[in-house]
């Protein structure tokens, strides 16, 4: 199976279409804002962030609305990508070899498809955290409408919201580290949309086969 529409000139491959990139950055920047203002409410030592973000009152008002934007973007990312995110046998093999991955010994890794097992975990982590955050967030948004005899909801929310936030910040840190520092070319793929063939061959050999398909056989023998 070949996907020639993904093949670009100059040996480039289209990894993310425009609408994928745009949605990614909407969720990315809204997450950044949510993380910063959320951390301001999280710890007195970080409360100054709220002043940087326009004042504590403004942050309190905007945080839930930006949260809605984040969740809508996340939902769209889910619709676009969830089909690629199912665990395969290769992914199980990938996790068994994850120590090689962390040591940058990518040649020892089983051939990942369009997304490797770590990226899939990140995806599901963000989706689950997003659901937990929006559910608890609604309670925290309008606590005055929670009647006294349903106050258990508020108690759950103040545990679930920071818990899921901490988890998603952990995922976020790994995501930034991998895309900006570890896998050079990954950040560019989310900006320009394209990656080199070498990048795909190196990190996503399974997907490389899919994309190149017959064209690899069409190449002249060495």
């Amino acid at each position: 199976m070949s996907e020639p529409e993904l093949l670009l000139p100059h040996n480039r491959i289209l990894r993310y279409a425009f609408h994928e990139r745009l949605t990614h950055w909407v969720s990315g920047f809204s997450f950044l804002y949510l993380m910063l203002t959320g951390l301001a409410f999280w710890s007195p030592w970080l409360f100054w962030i709220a002043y940087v973000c326009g004042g504590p009152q403004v942050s309190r008002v905007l945080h839930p609305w930006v949260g809605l934007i984040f969740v809508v973007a996340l939902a769209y990312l889910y619709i676009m990508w969830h089909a690629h995110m199912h665990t395969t046998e290769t992914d199980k093999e990938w996790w068994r070899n994850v120590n090689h991955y962390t040591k940058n010994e990518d040649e020892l890794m089983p051939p990942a498809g369009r997304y490797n097992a770590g990226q899939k975990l990140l995806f599901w982590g963000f989706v689950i955290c997003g659901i937990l955050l929006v559910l608890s967030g609604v309670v925290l948004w309008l606590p005055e409408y929670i009647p006294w005899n349903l106050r258990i909801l508020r108690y759950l929310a103040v545990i679930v919201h920071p818990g899921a936030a901490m988890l998603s910040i952990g995922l976020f840190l790994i995501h930034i580290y991998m895309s900006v520092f570890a896998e050079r070319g990954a950040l560019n793929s989310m900006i320009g949309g394209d990656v080199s063939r070498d990048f795909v061959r190196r990190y996503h050999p399974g997907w490389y086969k899919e994309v190149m398909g017959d064209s690899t056989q069409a190449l002249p023998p060495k």
Partner: protein
Amino acid sequence: MSQETMRVQKISAHAGTVPGEGTQREYTVSKLIDTTTCIGCKACEVACMEWNDLPFGETFFDNTYQTMPETRWNYWNLILFNEHEKEDGSLMWLMRKNQCMHCADPGCLAACPSDGAIIQYTNGIVDFQQEKCIGCGYCITGCPFNIPKFNPETKRVYKCTLCADRVGEGLEPACIKACPTGCLHFGSKEDMKELAEKRTTQLREHYNFPNAGVYDPAGVGGTGVMYILHDATQPELYGGLPKDPHIPLAVRLWKGPIKWLGNLAMVGGIIGLFIHYLRFGPKDKEDEQIREEIAAAQEKEVKAREENRAAVRAEVNQEGGEPSKGGHPR
């Protein structure tokens, strides 16, 4: 009870210690409410609204004296009525003036994320500073007594101040001043405790209330508002007064272990990733490889050229006989 008792002793979400904490010996103030002599006249409610200049809200009538179910952002002091049927079938009308309890260990203050929005004076009064309130409502979650109320218009939270402005000037709270039966008392906590003890002894020994007692729950470190109850074993009868109030466990977990675990994980994560980068660097050595390949190719080319030259030179030498005869050496 005057101005020197109005030093700040606790501050919400404050990064650091409280300035001037513990520099002076202070005594705490307390309101003592004797429910056994309350007649439910609501004079305290009116006095509260008058003094604090609160706008009047809608009330409703449901064939009882209860004009609203609970306190509101603009109604800080509400008598809760309960027509309680005793075991012998006789009726007992329980009335409790409900307002902020001014806990020694306030849940609202523990939950508040805004620096200085909730403070506790050294005299024990817990006061909201609305200009610093961000309207998150965490205090509503932290309070075990359902007291802080949100004003959707100003997006700030309000509650009884124990008339901190009056107390600071050496006056009693407005509600105390208005009470016609003298069921409301105000003074130092020690004096009020003594008074309460005397009254409960009287109730137990002379009025056939063997369970009479003082409500000063230890779960919140004691309260700045104490009740004398006919039956201290059943505080729930008095408008749902919790038997053993304490800061909700969820709030304690959230502001305690979860916070420290989270901080540790975040800082540890950042440090860990940085160290990982120092140790292993980027995955993508592509540029480096290409540079190496180019360098290798160039080297190969240079070598080939030199070999070529050497070959040509050898050829020339062979043809021209003596090597020195050909003019300049190359």
